[in-house]
């Protein structure tokens, strides 16, 4: 008995050590460890009027997001209690009923988020950050929820099928299986983004080709997405992997930003691809999914485990709570990846002034607070703050005075 316990303890310790080792590997970036950010005063880059406007704008959004999070947890808490009653709305057997209850959990979330989403839109419209209509927003948001409904159906199918085979140990196989599903979605996602076309501006196309080669990923696809009808700030993203890998620039970015700043955006997005940030994200997700799945398995034992569809509402609530608790870790991780992409972009373009100009312009357009409160960055900051990004540009210039 004692030997068995000892072996178990050893196994747990080994698993924990492996987890920590893997996490530390993922945590590494190419940003120099001794890089000291100069600590700039935002008033050097933004007028006091801009800062006041951004501060008041973001204060409302912060309250809105916090309330939305609390409402979501409350809605899922209620659903955890009342949800099993929805079993009678199904004629679909064990797994199908689990899928239904999973989707209804998302339905609860959607309803709980609706007022906060509308309040956010109202605030954005008031500040000319968005021009989207309320009805369009609701319809778009409702339809966009379709992807989430499909994902949770698939997740429930996998989890409940595994729970049918391994009543207690399903979580070990479920975590990698779910990450594999997410990977499949990530692969397909770039093909599903509407209104894409190749870069029509020959100079930007030439820049993209040069920058991709400089970062060691020649021939990477670059597409422009027509988003001018959607409102919102200009943006860009790196998406997909393998044949679906691409950088997508919003047309609003190309129309409103000068060429050197677009070059910085391109270099930043290429860096996400060249530094395998997507794979790192999925590695991180896998690391997070494993303990979350274990806690879900333990939390639902009294309701029959995830073999029983009636325990799905509780499982969703537990997942939501754990994701909320781990939010600072998630945002810190993505912040590091974004900082690395900025650093690589600086090393590729050698244009710190362009980067400074880019973030000043972006900050003004999106009314981002350059130096938000620490707790806000801790909880929600999935990108470095505007002032930290400008500080990084300055730090790069100090390290590379001749360039």
């Amino acid at each position, binding site marked *: 008995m004692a030997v068995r316990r000892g072996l178990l303890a050893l196994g747990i310790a080994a698993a924990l050590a492996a987890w920590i080792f893997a996490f530390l590997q993922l945590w590494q970036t190419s940003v120099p460890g001794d890089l000291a950010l100069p600590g700039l005063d935002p008033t050097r880059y933004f007028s006091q009027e801009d800062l006041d406007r951004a501060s008041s704008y973001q204060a409302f959004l912060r309250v809105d997001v916090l309330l939305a999070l609390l409402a979501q947890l409350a809605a899922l808490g209620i659903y955890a209690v009342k949800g099993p009653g929805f079993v009678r709305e199904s004629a*679909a*057997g064990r797994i*199908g009923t689990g899928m239904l209850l999973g*989707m*209804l959990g998302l*339905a609860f979330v959607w309803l709980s988020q609706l007022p906060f989403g509308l309040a956010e839109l109202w605030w954005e419209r008031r500040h000319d950050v968005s021009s989207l209509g309320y009805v369009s927003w609701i319809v778009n948001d409702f339809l966009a929820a379709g992807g989430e*409904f499909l994902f949770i159906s*698939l997740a429930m199918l996998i989890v409940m099928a595994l729970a049918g085979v391994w009543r207690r140990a399903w979580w070990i196989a479920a975590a990698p299986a779910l990450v594999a599903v997410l990977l499949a979605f990530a692969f397909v996602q770039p093909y599903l983004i509407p209104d894409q076309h190749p870069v029509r501006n020959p100079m930007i196309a030439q820049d993209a080709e040069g920058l991709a080669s400089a970062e060691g990923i020649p021939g990477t696809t670059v597409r422009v997405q027509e988003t001018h009808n959607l409102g919102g700030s200009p943006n860009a993203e790196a998406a997909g992997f393998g044949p679906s890998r691409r950088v997508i620039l919003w047309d609003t970015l190309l129309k409103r930003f000068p060429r050197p700043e677009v070059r910085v955006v391109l270099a930043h997005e290429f860096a996400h691809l060249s530094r395998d940030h997507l794979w790192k994200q999925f590695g991180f997700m896998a690391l997070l999914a494993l303990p979350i799945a274990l806690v879900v398995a333990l939390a639902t034992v009294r309701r029959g485990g995830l073999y029983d569809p009636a325990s799905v509402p509780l499982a969703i609530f537990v997942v939501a709570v754990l994701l909320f608790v781990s939010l600072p870790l998630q945002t810190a991780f993505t912040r590091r990846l974004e900082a690395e992409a900025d650093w690589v972009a600086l090393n590729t373009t050698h244009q710190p002034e362009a980067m400074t100009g880019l973030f000043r312009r972006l900050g003004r357009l999106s009314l981002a607070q350059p130096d938000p409160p620490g707790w806000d960055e801790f909880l929600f900051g999935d990108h470095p703050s505007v002032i930290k990004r400008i500080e990084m540009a300055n730090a790069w210039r100090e390290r590379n005075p001749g360039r």
Partner: protein
Amino acid sequence: MFFRLILVIPHLIVLAIFGLLAFAIAFISWFAILFTGRAVGHGMQARYLRYWTHVYSYVLLAANPYPGFEGEPGSYPIDAEVPPPERQNKWKTGFRFVLVIPAWLLAGALGVSGTASWYSSYYSTYGVVTTVALLGWFAILARKQMPRGLRDLAVYCLSYGLQFWAYVLLVTDRYPDSDPLTRDYGKAPVSDHPVRISEDDDLRRSRLTVFFRLLLALPHIVWLTLWGIAVVFTVIANWFVTLFAGRTADALHRFNGAYVRYLTHVSAYVDLVANPFPGFTGKPGTYPIDLQIAPPERQNRWKTGFRIILAIPALLLAGAIGATLGLVAVFAWFVGLFTAKMPVGLRNLGVFAVRYQAQTYAYFWLLTDSYPFSGPSLERLAPAPAQVPEPA
């Protein structure tokens, strides 16, 4: 018969003039009801409605004799029963223009609103009854007889149209009843159709699942599509088997039958004809709106060989009925959201539509060589016995 559209021209002229008069009377009636609670010119309106029924029954081939011009009661095989004058609710009268909109849409989809509504135009159909008349015209030329199913469906549409116009012209304040089971179709049809529907729905609807019904159906739509790809090949294989062996292969029949049953379950769920979330396997006996499919039987080789062509009329009608089913779903969505119930009339109309589509698919995909029965009268027969689940 061949010249029916030409023969009916005098009636259409008289009906148009009569219609203008009926609208003028309705306009005066609107004020009269608002002040006194009673309509004026009831006798005239009743005569117009009867005449409308006679003429449309004739032109849509639901009846054969040339109608008279007087709209006399009892003078035509398909007649209108118009309620006697009665007190009418002033609120319902005052807001009649708004209240009539759902009925107008449904009447448009059925093809009896007198105008092609935006809804039916969207679906590129001129309504169910127009499709019925077109198909009936060919059938009568070939067989000298209007098929019973088409006749019954025309009667249902005309009956709804009559109620709709009675409501519009302020003859009554009773809302048009969409229930196909409340109509008198005469003698019950003899049907031993191998594909039958059974209904065991309690009309209760969950507001939450009604609101999110389309999103909740997404996994089913994805699965239907994937399964459907396999069915394309099994149907082709079954076509060859049936052509050579004279009957379908058991395994293919089971596979395709399960798909049609699953399609029926999902269709009933999406269109709010039933409440529970369906299973993914099309297993018999698992859903309130269920399909009983008889085992494989001998099929006529000629009918099998030319199935694609033979199925065209049924597919046309299934398209028109499908547009009506879509409308049923939209109405049921609003009603279900507010009352957590499905109106029985809409549910029964939905069951009929789902059943006709299922029989059409079953015919097209070679589960049977019995032609789909288009009459809503079939649902009045005793429900099909619950089927013993097939072995897995």
